[in-house]
């Protein structure tokens, strides 16, 4: 009975191709998948290499730039590398370079913003006057023959005040520009 029914199945349900054809197509499918995998791996490897290259170039540029005193005089505010003013107080030459860069940046600014807000400007003028006072005292101390070693702390204080002045003027410039 069952055999009879099987023999009478419609032709649509019959196998579309024979075993040999099935094996050929299966091999083709496997080869296509392997090729696609290989292509994707190549693409991924190229992308990763590109990312690594970009990161490598960025790191290389950063190290090369910090090799000497950066010339920031003509930089727009947003492009200024503020890290030159921070950290690594142990290196005397580094400290000097940062102080020079800070003073060059300050010298590149206009004397005051177009619109002066009294509170912030008072903070700026207070710092400027205190630095000027320290400078005058340092002159007097040197003329009076005070040993340079005794002035190291005062010079460090001056550097701190200059850094603070940079920060306050940066804030003042940003706020003034966004009004």
């Amino acid at each position, binding site marked *: 009975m069952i055999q009879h029914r099987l023999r009478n199945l419609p032709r649509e349900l019959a196998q579309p191709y024979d075993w040999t054809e099935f094996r050929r197509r299966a091999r083709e499918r496997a080869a296509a998948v392997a090729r696609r995998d290989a292509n994707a791996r190549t693409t991924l490897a190229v992308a990763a290499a590109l990312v690594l290259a970009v990161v490598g170039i960025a790191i290389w540029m950063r190290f090369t730039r910090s090799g000497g005193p950066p010339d920031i005089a003509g930089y727009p505010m947003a492009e200024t590398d503020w890290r030159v003013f921070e950290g690594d107080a142990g290196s005397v030459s580094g400290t000097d370079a940062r102080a020079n860069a800070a003073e060059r940046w300050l010298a590149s600014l206009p004397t005051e913003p177009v619109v002066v807000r*009294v*509170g912030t400007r008072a903070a*700026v003028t*207070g710092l400027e006057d205190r630095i*000027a006072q320290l400078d005058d005292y340092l*002159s007097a101390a040197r003329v009076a023959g005070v040993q340079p070693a005794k002035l190291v702390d005062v010079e460090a204080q001056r550097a701190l005040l200059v850094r603070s002045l940079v920060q306050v003027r940066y*804030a003042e410039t940003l706020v003034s520009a966004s009004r």
Partner: protein
Amino acid sequence: MRNPTKWARVLSLSLLSGAVFARGASADPPTPPPAPGRSADARDADIQAQLDAAQKRLEDAARQVADLSTQLSGRYLKQFSKFDGPFGRVIIGVQLDPDSGKEGARVVEVSPGGPAAEAGIKVGDVIVNVNGKDVTGEEPARQVMKIIRDVKPDDKVVVRIARDGSSRTFSVKPRQKPDAVFLARAMPAMPDLPDLPGLPPSFMVDGPLSNMELVTLSPHLGKYFGTDKGVLVVRAPPDGLKLEDGDVILAIDGREPSSGSHATRILGSYQPGEKVTLRIVRERKTLELQSTMPAESGRTHRTIVFNDGGAGGITLSNTL
């Protein structure tokens, strides 16, 4: 790798989110998204309010940086008080090389924003003449100090320098010493002075005058206000000084401010409660306002002012 394109997407998303995180890292919480259904104007007003608040925090932090730094440096100035102001009661903001040689006093540092810097003096300049007196020969740096010692605040000092083989003349406007410590040179014993306070007075930095806004008047802009000099008040202080928006300050007790910074310095030289006369232009008419410096507000640290008591004495007055 079953689905490489998926991995590529994950990698690029990670890189993107890393970059966004690195750029957006901040101590402040992220701004909440605007509530749906609100008008664009209301959202803009919200953002503007947040921007204003952020700017205020930035300015407050900057002012605090200035205040704390100046407080910290007070101890070092105290160490130097025995030199009692090498330049007398004024500051000019230069460091001179004591071993300059006989050709003049070599400038080794110029204070940023100081009087010498404002005048145009630069590091490396050699001062050869001050107010018509040559300072070449023996100890030129000491000679410069000696001349400047007799100069009064706001007097002009004419300085001739040698730079790159040529001679230039600058007009330096010395400033009064900021902390008003005038100690007699002959005072026999120095009392145990406390560290000098942060500067300037708090009614300038975060008091009623702190939000006043000034613009240095150019001759062209001055035509609109009926004067060719002075400092325009863009935003008057809400309390004190009787100023109004649009006033032009011509003089403060006779001292003519040349810029917004100069006006700030002059106003900062007063104590709270002190009387001050302002000569102003209002609606193209010149007026004199009798005003009082507003009281300080809200600062917790003590400001101590030393005054010259005459005959070698010192008086201390504390203001909270």
